[in-house]
Each structure stands twice: as C-alpha cells, then as structure tokens.
C-alpha cells in the first residue's frame, strides 16, 4: 500500500456511506483511499450494528412485502421529523432508495426475508443477510477487489482545507502523523455520539451516565474540523437518538442485544422509587425512542422497569437476567431502592388500574384513573409474584448535528457557497433529511443514497 500518492478520492470513514462512495468512485475508474479510524474488527461505525435499509419499491422486490410507495415513504418521513427535513433532499433520498437493493446485490450484498422478532418491517425495509456486519464484509470485499486502498486505525487528526477546497487529510497511522493528499474528499465518518466530552457540552454531567450503542470510535473529529473550517451546520447539536437499554450493558458497542422493550408491560420508577412518565402512551416504534430521553432526564440517569410474572415473557428476551424477588419490597431492596417508596408507588398504581381487556398489540382499554401520571394503556395490576425488574439507562445511537449538503452530496459552506471538492455522506449529513425523530432503516438509506451520490460527484470532480 502506498498512501503517499495523490488519490482521486479520499474517503474519511469506513461504514456503509463511505464504502458506497468508495465503490462508486472506484467503479468510475478513480483511485480511492478509505481512511477508517477503527481497527479492522470494529470497522464500519454504526453500520456494524444495523440490520436493514428502508426503500421505496413497487412490490416486486424479492424478500419484501410491498409495495412501498414513494409518497407513503415521504409521509412517514414527514411524520417522524415533524417536517424538519429538506424536502428536495428527502425526495431525492426516496427516489433513489429504490435502486439500492439491486445495486447492493451487485456488490455482493445478500438480503433475507424478515423473520421472527423483526417488528413488522417486511414491507418497508430490506434486511441484510446476517445483519450489518455481513453487509459490510461484502462491501469491503467488493471495494478491495476494485483496488480501493482501505487503511484501518487511520483516525483523521487534521484537515488541510482552504476556503472550502480540500488539499489533504492528516492521519495518525502506526504512531506517526501522515498526510494523505487527494483531489476530492468525502466525509463519511459519522457523528459524535461516542465523544462523551462533546455530549457534556449539552447534557452536563448526565452524559457520563450515557451508554453508547456503537463503537468508541464515533468521535466526530472530522465533523468538528469541517464546522471549524466554515462548512454550514445542519441539525440540532444538542439532540441525539436515545433508547432505553439495560444498565448492565457495556459502555460502548453493546449494539442491539442490550435493548429492552419491557417498559410498557409494567411501570417505570426512578432512583427515588417514583413513576415519572405514562408507560402506556405510545405503541412501538415511537415508545422505543422516547424512553432513552426520559431516563436521561431522571436523577442519575437511571430507571427501573418493574413487572410481575404475567408479563415477563411478553417482550424480546434480554441478554441479562431480570432481577427477581418474591415481594415488591424485596425487589426494591435488591435494586437498592427505598422499599417503602416503591411499595407505595406499586400500591397506588394497582389501586388506580381500571378493568379492561389487555392486548399489547393495540392501544387497549387497560388504563389507570386518578393518578397524577397516568398509564393510559396496557395497565395491569402488578400483583402476581415473583416480581421482576430491569435497570435501564439511556443508550445513545446517533447524533443529529451534521454538515449541510446539496443534491450532489456536495458540502455547502456557511456563506452559502458550494465547497469546491468536498462531499459528505451518511450520519455526518443525515440531519439534512432527518432533522429529528427516527424511522427504522433510514440511516442506511441516507448513507447508501448519498454515499453513491458523493462517489459519483467526487469521481466526476476528480477527473476535471
């Protein structure tokens, strides 16, 4: 490998967006280098924890139920973002999403039908065979067969950018600083969700108690450099996607297996043994995404999902065992909570539960009455021992802050001008399309669509 030559395209990052850009540019005959900050095993950033992408299709796509109409896709996007999306880029994303399955197939990526536990996404989402790492492995094999130079442990430490013109990136490689020069630059290296110090700027000490679902390498270094070099920001810097996950999960890279969907089946209490939000407010998937934030706002950023034996088998199994006890008081003691407070919370809750017909697949009529914080659906008395609990913490998936791009995936500078030779794809620009909220699989869609656009744009520009 010779990283001293001048590349046509320098790609920072090594996930879905980066590889889509690299493969597209290499297919156009360009000399491409991929600078992945992580070691080889951890390559791919958040992509390694994904499992599907969302795409519009006419119903003929194999392995998918359908069709998923572009208009319906756009409606879904508007609904979750509350309109915080660049309409032109949203439409572009959706229009080009239907090319993704055949394109990915051509790169050696396999898809599978959605099976058990895949949350009824069979119509809207195409599932990678073996998940995101399987898909990444295929993309890397393809990139390497096309002559793309992939460098691991190559964290970008500085960018040489003058007035929106990229000259070179400095990487720390083999313990030494190395300058990688290129005619164009594609930033596809994610957000800053693993950068606790940066999160502290907005969340204060609470950030110390956040669990990061992806690798520790998603530090947002390039994002910060680009913003400092005068690229126009997009997305709310304070916002991140947070779900509730088991507090016993590793600090980084626990991925999907540590999430818990037990909340709606019982009650949630905080460190003081008090309920703090309506556990029955929403049906999946929205409820999945609200509890991370709710717990983040509680003292010590911890919550406890308390259930009885009627409900313990009603949600996806967890990798950590539930904490179990014969009485609520004993359960509280095991959780190191005040037993008196928790017993009172459960007793008050049980007394407020109204008769109803329980059905967790719909917004049923099981609710409480007379509580300051109601449980508006799926409310059943917690009265059948043994009792169970899971400790939960906020699990941060991704951040929304990014760089503004145009329809070619080219960066826009703070003064509104286009960057001469800099493109962005993936999470680092996802805020253009997904200003807030979340839609399952949309991150992979944005990454692949804008990755390909960036690859096309960079290939074209590098020739001129």
């Amino acid at each position, binding site marked *: 490998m010779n990283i001293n030559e001048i590349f046509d395209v320098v790609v920072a990052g090594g996930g879905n967006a980066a590889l889509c850009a690299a493969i597209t540019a290499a297919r156009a005959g360009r000399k491409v280098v991929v600078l992945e900050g992580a070691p080889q095993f951890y390559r791919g950033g958040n992509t390694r924890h994904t499992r599907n992408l969302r795409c519009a299709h006419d119903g003929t796509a194999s392995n998918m139920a359908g069709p998923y109409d572009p208009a319906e896709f756009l409606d879904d996007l508007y609904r979750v973002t509350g309109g915080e999306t660049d309409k032109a880029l949203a439409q572009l994303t959706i229009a080009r999403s239907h090319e993704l399955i055949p394109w990915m197939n051509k790169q050696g990526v396999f898809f599978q039908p959605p*099976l058990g536990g895949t949350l009824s996404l069979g119509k809207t989402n195409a599932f990678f065979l073996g998940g995101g790492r*399987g898909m990444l492995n*295929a993309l890397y094999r393809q990139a390497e067969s096309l002559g793309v130079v992939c460098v691991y442990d190559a964290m970008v430490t500085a960018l040489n950018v003058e007035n929106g013109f990229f000259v070179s990136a400095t990487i720390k490689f083999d313990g030494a600083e190395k300058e990688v020069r290129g005619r164009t630059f594609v930033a596809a290296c994610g957000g800053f969700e693993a950068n606790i110090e940066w999160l502290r700027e907005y969340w204060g000490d609470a950030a110390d108690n956040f669990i990061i679902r992806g690798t520790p390498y998603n530090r947002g270094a390039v994002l910060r450099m680009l913003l400092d070099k005068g690229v126009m920001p997009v997305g709310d810097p304070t916002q991140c996607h947070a779900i509730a996950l088991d507090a016993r999960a590793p600090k980084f890279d626990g991925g999907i297996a540590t999430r818990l969907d037990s909340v709606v089946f019982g009650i949630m209490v905080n460190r003081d043994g008090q309920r703090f939000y309506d556990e029955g407010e929403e049906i999946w998937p929205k409820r999945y995404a609200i509890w991370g934030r709710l717990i983040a706002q509680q003292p010590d950023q911890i919550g406890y999902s308390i259930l009885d034996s009627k409900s313990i088998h009603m949600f996806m199994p967890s*990798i950590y065992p539930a904490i179990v006890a014969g009485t609520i008081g004993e359960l509280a003691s095991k959780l190191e909570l005040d037993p008196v407070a928790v017993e009172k919370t459960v007793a008050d809750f049980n007394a407020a539960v109204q008769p109803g017909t329980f059905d967790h697949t719909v917004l049923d009529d099981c609710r409480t009455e007379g509580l300051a914080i109601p449980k508006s659906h799926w409310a059943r008395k917690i009265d059948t021992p043994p009792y169970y609990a899971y400790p939960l913490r906020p699990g941060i998936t991704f951040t929304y802050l990014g760089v503004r791009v145009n329809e070619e995936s080219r960066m826009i500078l703070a003064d509104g001008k286009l960057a001469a030779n800099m493109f962005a794809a993936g999470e680092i620009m996802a805020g253009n399309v997904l200003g807030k909220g979340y839609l399952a699989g949309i991150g992979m869609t944005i990454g692949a669509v804008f990755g390909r656009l960036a690859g096309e744009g960079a290939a074209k520009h590098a020739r001129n």
Partner: protein
Amino acid sequence: MRGIDPTRSAALTEADRLMTICNACRYCEGLCAVFPAMEKHRTFGEGDLNYLANLCHQCGACYSDCQYSPPHEFNVNVPSALSKVRNDSYEQYAWPRAFAGAFARNGLFITLLASGSVAAFIAGFVALRDPAVLFGHHAGDFYKLMPHNAMVAIFGTVFIYAILALTMSLRAFWRDINGAGSGAAVAEATHDAGHLTYLGGGGGGCTSENEKPSAQRRIFHHLTFYGFMFCFASTSVATVYHYALGWHAPYPLTSLPVLLGIIGGVGLLAGPAGLFLLAQKRDPVLVDRPRLGMDVAFLTMLFLTALTGFALMLLRDSSAMGLLLAIHLGVVLGLFLSLPYGKFVHGMYRYLALVKFNKEG
C-alpha cells in the same frame, strides 16, 4: 450472563450464554436453521442445546457476520461453542456407554480398529488357507479366498451391530431433544440433508475457510456423501444379483455393481480429499480443535475404502489380489465397526435435528 449451573459442562454453559445473547440479537436468523429454532426458546435446557448443536452445519457464516465475535467483549463464537456441544453429545449418547471414550481419542481408536481388522483378515487367510492361495492368481474370484457365506456372516453381523448401536444412540438423542416428526417433516429434512441447505450460509455460501463465502465444502461433502451412497447402491445391487438372480461375482467392468462402485469410489476419493484439504485451511477458531481427529479418521477411512477398492479392482487378476482383498475387507470392516463411534454419526443426529426443525416449522 445467567447464573452458572455447576452440573453443566463448560461447553453447555458457554452455548447457553451464547444462545441467550443471540436470542436478544437475532441478526443471524436468515443464515440457517439454528437461529429460528433458537427463537422458540427463552431459556435453554441441555436437550435444547444438544438439538441446536446438531442442527448447526458449522458453515461459519454467523461468526464472520457477528458484531459480537472476538475481540468484542461478548466473545460470541457460535460455530466453535456448538461444535464442542455436538461432539460431547456424540459421546453422551454413545451405546453402549462403555464406548463413549471412543470419541475422545477417535483417531487412535479408528486406527486401531482398522489396522486390527486388516491384520485379522491377513492372518485369517494365512491361517485358514494355504499361503500359496493368498498369493495365487484367481482371475478376480474373491470367493476362492473367502467363501461368500463367510463374508456375509462377518459383515452382516457387524452391520447389524452398527445399526443397533446407532439406533440406541439416536433414540436417546430423540428423547432428550423432545423429538417430534411427521411425514412432511421427514421429506423436508431429507431434502435439506440431501441439498445441504444449511451449509450455505443462507445464500452467501460457507465462510469457513476465510471470510469470503464459498461453495467448496458443500461440493466436496456432496461428492463424499453421494460417493458413499453409490458404493452402498453397488453393494445392494450385487446382493440382489447374488441371491435373487444367482449371478455371482466377479462382475465385469461394465456391470451395474462395478459401474456404481466406480462412480462412488471416485466420489469417495475426491470428496474426503477435498474436505481434508479444506479443513487444513479452516480458521482454527471455528472448530473443536482437540477432536478434529474424529473428522480426519472418518475421512481417512472413506478414502482408504475407495483407494483399496480401486486397487483391488485394477489388480484383481494379479497375484496381489489376495493381499489386497484382505486389506480392503479389513478397511471396510474397520469402517463398519467404527460407524457408531465416529464422525459418521453426525449425519444421523443432524438428520433427526432437521426432522424436528421441519416439524416445528
């Protein structure tokens, strides 16, 4: 992540730990039968784990696709964990129990069986016949050296014993895994076994040699399996010729038993040789290394069966026939004796696991 059960083996404890992680992730559910079968459980008993372990075809796809494989702290390596449980299960269900140890040092066990059988045939021929007969020319007539009835008596007895021992083992397994079947499930399992559906990584191919999916192992396994079946067919046709039609060996080269034997023999040379060479290239983290001898022993026996069979066929008109016959019969007898106590059993357990899987849909 659950409490440790002191009565369980380390292999079962590890498989339980991994299935608990996999069951919370489920990204691999499209790869093979193991993961959909796993999803029917929330906890894993010993029978459940033995069932899942025998469903696993060791293709390796779930290892290279896993975001939690080492060096990740979850340290998920399903092919390795299940191969240990699987190999333990062969031992556990061995009948009679006294022979369970045959699996632990399988290479040695089978070498002793085979060489003992060969020696017995040579000694038998020498003792019971004039040595001149052993080295004489017999125009391919094996029965000059050993009467047909004697051959049938020896091989028939051993074959019936092998069937009995296997049946007893499989019964214990079937009870333990809470087996259930139906005509349709048997048909589907037969299809899955015949096609090696689950040695395909769900479509990407077997990723055992390196991260790149490949069909090689499946192809060589097909050569081995169908080679074995052709040889079996050859013997069956010859039996019908002998008893039903009164046509006695030696049969001409263009006869059905010889043609079937040739086709099968080619498969049994190429298949085991290919599987052996692939096994040398296999990522050692995927396999149960201490018990790889079992695979090598079985492949060697199949290969030698074909090799000595061909040697016998080509040289049956020469003075070497007597010795070659003794060697070939010895190897085949060794193979038969070792069927219930070697790698051969993998096909039986896996087939039953597939029946249960297809029954439960």
